[in-house]
């Protein structure tokens, strides 16, 4: 059985594998403009415009390191198979080093996770969830649009979670695409995988295992499928998500958690 295809997504997509492209360093773009003279002229007039508008050449910028970083989880969570480029995907090999960097960087004090995902690979999704849950810095998640399937553990992995009023989360059983061997063990394996998702969600949110399983195996809510689609306040009523809100509330909460975290750290030093 191919373990790479444990798809937990509300859409059904397939992909092919291809090698990782090496990244290369892009040089400074300022003087080497290939546009030649015209490009040079544009640059000059842009500079003049700035001087005329602001009386200076430097446009005010955000401070070099913002203390809150933002992780966006969009499209499909990509696992061991690379999806065709027209798919919008979140790749764990991109996210995990970023989370490590956030943990290590002294200047970063908090992390905002924004989700609008259809779900995807179980193991990749759980990997991201575990990374977020074990991050020592305050984390707040915000579900916008949709946080379906494996997006659910990612949303609840954060210290505090928000959901937009119109956002939805689909909770349904794990399914398998690709080659499946028709033996009872396959079912047991799938059941075990499902338990990993259920355990993670119940450990990191206020929903009970019974409630979550009930939502997961409910009939008649989704067309051609078992499961439930919870919208905005329903998710917070079940205790899955902490609060209904938007980016303003999420950042306010994150700043509160950062202050609390600071006080705690100072207490240890004294």
């Amino acid at each position, binding site marked *: 059985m191919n373990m790479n295809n444990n798809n937990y997504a509300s859409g059904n997509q*397939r992909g*092919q594998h*291809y090698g990782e492209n090496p990244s290369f360093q*892009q040089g400074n773009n300022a003087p080497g403009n290939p546009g030649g003279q015209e490009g040079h002229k544009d640059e000059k007039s842009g500079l003049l415009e700035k001087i005329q508008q602001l009386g200076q050449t430097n446009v005010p910028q*955000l401070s070099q390191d*913002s203390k809150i970083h933002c992780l966006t989880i969009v499209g499909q969570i990509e696992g061991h198979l690379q999806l*065709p480029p027209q798919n919008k995907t979140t790749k764990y090999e991109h996210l995990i080093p*970023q989370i490590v960097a956030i943990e290590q960087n002294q200047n970063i004090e908090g992390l905002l996770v924004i989700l609008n995902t259809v779900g995807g690979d179980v193991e990749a999704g759980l990997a991201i969830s575990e990374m977020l849950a074990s991050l020592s810095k305050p984390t707040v998640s915000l579900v916008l649009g949709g946080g379906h399937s494996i997006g659910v553990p990612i949303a609840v992995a954060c210290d505090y979670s928000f959901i937009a009023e119109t956002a939805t989360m689909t909770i349904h059983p794990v399914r398998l695409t690709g080659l499946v061997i028709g033996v009872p063990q396959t079912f047991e394996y799938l059941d075990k995988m499902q338990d990993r998702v259920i355990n993670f969600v119940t450990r990191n949110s206020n929903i009970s295992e019974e409630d979550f399983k009930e939502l997961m195996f409910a009939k008649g809510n989704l067309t051609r499928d078992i499961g439930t689609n919870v919208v905005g306040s329903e998710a917070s009523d079940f205790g899955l998500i902490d609060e209904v809100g938007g980016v303003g509330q999420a950042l306010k909460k994150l700043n509160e958690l950062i202050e609390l975290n600071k006080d705690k750290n100072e207490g240890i030093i004294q």
Partner: protein
Amino acid sequence: MILYTAMPQELVYQTDPQEYSQQLMVSYNGIPVLAERTEDHNYRVVRVMSTDPSHFLEAGCTPGTKLPLV
């Protein structure tokens, strides 16, 4: 051509392997961006992969801008 099949569309019409090599990760002044190759052998920014919100205000690498090759 009219297809009547239970096979998913993406299995019937599989992606040309060449399409995969169109996109690659590039570092633009230290900002990780996902870029795609254009017909004139330039690179166009598809997505900024950083978590730093200030990188999204950087005019040189907003999605859609062409990255000049130096």
